[in-house]
């Protein structure tokens, strides 16, 4: 890889978390979002010669992602439950605002995970690292599936609140 290609690859890797959330916010459905993300990466590579080094790579990538979502969403309308175009635009605006300080949010997450109880951290680890679904967790922990769903939701909500609180403190 020459230097330009290596820099572009680094930018592309670094922007993946933002792209992931941005696209998912626009479509809702995780599977469709994963597919559109891959297509977006392909388009970004094809258009690499259009990117001006030194400018905001993230903004450039999100713009292309936005266009790709609108272009690709028709492919999923029949097979997946995805947001309509107007809602996709509204969600994109919300996502763009929330993703501005993603780096700070990522840094805050580690601390916020540390505030969880050990059982809750373990549940999250199993949910994500081992991809155990609600039913599997319910069976393993001998708890009703509804209770597991609520607990997972509460944990995510608590983490979101904690991250917001910490990033706000950082700005103050």
């Amino acid at each position: 890889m020459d230097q330009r290609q290596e820099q572009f690859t680094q930018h592309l890797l670094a922007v993946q978390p933002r792209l992931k959330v941005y696209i998912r916010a626009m479509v809702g459905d995780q599977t469709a979002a994963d597919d559109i993300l891959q297509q977006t990466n392909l388009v970004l590579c094809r258009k690499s010669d259009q990117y001006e080094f030194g400018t905001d790579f993230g903004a450039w990538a999100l713009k292309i992602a936005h266009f790709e979502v609108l272009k690709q969403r028709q492919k999923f309308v029949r097979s997946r439950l995805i947001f309509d175009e107007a809602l996709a635009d509204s969600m994109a605006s919300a996502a763009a605002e929330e993703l501005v300080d993603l780096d700070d949010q990522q840094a805050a997450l580690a601390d916020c995970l540390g505030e969880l109880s050990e059982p809750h951290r373990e549940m999250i680890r199993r949910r994500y690292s081992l991809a155990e679904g609600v039913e599997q967790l319910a069976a393993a922990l001998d708890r009703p599936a509804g209770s597991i769903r609520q607990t997972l939701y509460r944990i995510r909500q608590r983490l979101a609140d904690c991250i917001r609180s910490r990033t706000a403190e950082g700005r103050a």
Partner: protein
Amino acid sequence: MTNTPDTPDTLLTALLEGDLKADDHAALCEQLHDDADLRRRTVRLMIVDAMLADVYPAAEPAPSLSTHLPKAQTPATGFRFQLRTAVALAAMIALVVTAWFILRPEPSTSTQPPTASQGVQPADTPITTVVSASGTVVIGDALAHAGSDHPAGLITLGSGSARFILTSGVDVQLHGATQLIIHDPMHATLTQGTVTFTCPPSAVGYTVNLSGGRKVVDLGTRFQVTYDIDGTPRTTVFEGRVEIHDPSLDHARVVTAGQIATWPTGRLTIEPYPWQVVNPGFEVGSGLTASLTTHPSWLEEHPSADVRTRSVGRNAETTGLRPIGEGDTWLTLDGRPADDGELGGVYQKIGPIIDRTVYRLHVLVGERADNPTPGGQGTAADVTWGLFTGSPDHFEPLAAAVASRDLSDAMKADNNKPDTQTSELTFDSTDSGRLGEELYIRFAVIRPAGDKRTAQLLFDDVRLDVRNAPPPTQPSNKPPTSDHP
């Protein structure tokens, strides 16, 4: 939270879990259209979801530790992942096209000249053989399967795991969503995900390029490379040694077994890798009057539960008589004999003991102030806790404490104070002759009180940490090229 079917919380939960029904989807869209706060909250939850997926990537643990995971930790077959896998193929094939952009062999940076068999191969010469794949794998422009051979190219794994062997003898294992570029039998670039490399002596000099111009050069070893959530590479060495090359440093650093190299603040940091924690979930042994069957998991998972082996575990009348634990529940082991005189305890089966592994059990031990402490003054009762092997019918201690022998004088003294002490017990399986035997955590009464008096010992913050034992000292096949940092 009291959710009814159409509340935003319920709908968002279904959205995040990937099982939103059509009617609920329509209801959610309607609410999102009308409510800017809900849109913001939804995005925040999606951010958390995405970040958690990165913090806890779907990956196998360090190979030698995998048998110690709780039994419920089976490979993923969840709804969400099945769907992802089903559509991943088309996406991955599209991704392969990107290989043209990033797939170019770099000039050799190895500290060893490649041998003839390791030299640059013609583009279509097979250099990779797939050994196994639990997920969909694309190498170059072909779908990979066990036994298939492939030339250099971009390897893309969507989920699950895959293992393949290079013609240089290097064993490569991909864990979870990973992209690895194989340039030739001796050079690769990791762009995403987690890979474990096992390099034979013939492949010394095998080089993995990482972001930021960093490189890992093998010195005959087994190591794992991954990226942290912020894109920082992390190299964990399980056996042998590697060299870390960092453009910001004037010479390479050597990282040895049991160490991690990472760049948490942009500067190379080498430190011992952390213990892997296993959370126990106890079962009841014989001779106990109270049941733990409704509380099968880790002690503090049910902080309000009355977890006990006998007698009270959490009782307002005696709360002040107990020290403050890590949570608000103590496991209470009572030396008062059961009605049938049988002794009992609780135990957790961890799994088979594996080679060259250090097990460290951490326990916070407390006493009740208003009764004699087992092993202490004024009681015949005695209890034990620690790591055992054997079976529930016949346990054998590997690293165990006994109250009468190992409690502090303050704990043993009948001084009306609820004292505590930390107990750490370590068992190294290296040369122990115990390989393959079952490992248990156990708390048990070994001698009952002579009368019907309460004689309790309390346990909390029970944690088993596991890590690889330090490698045995042996001659290396190549002297280090730099001092140890």
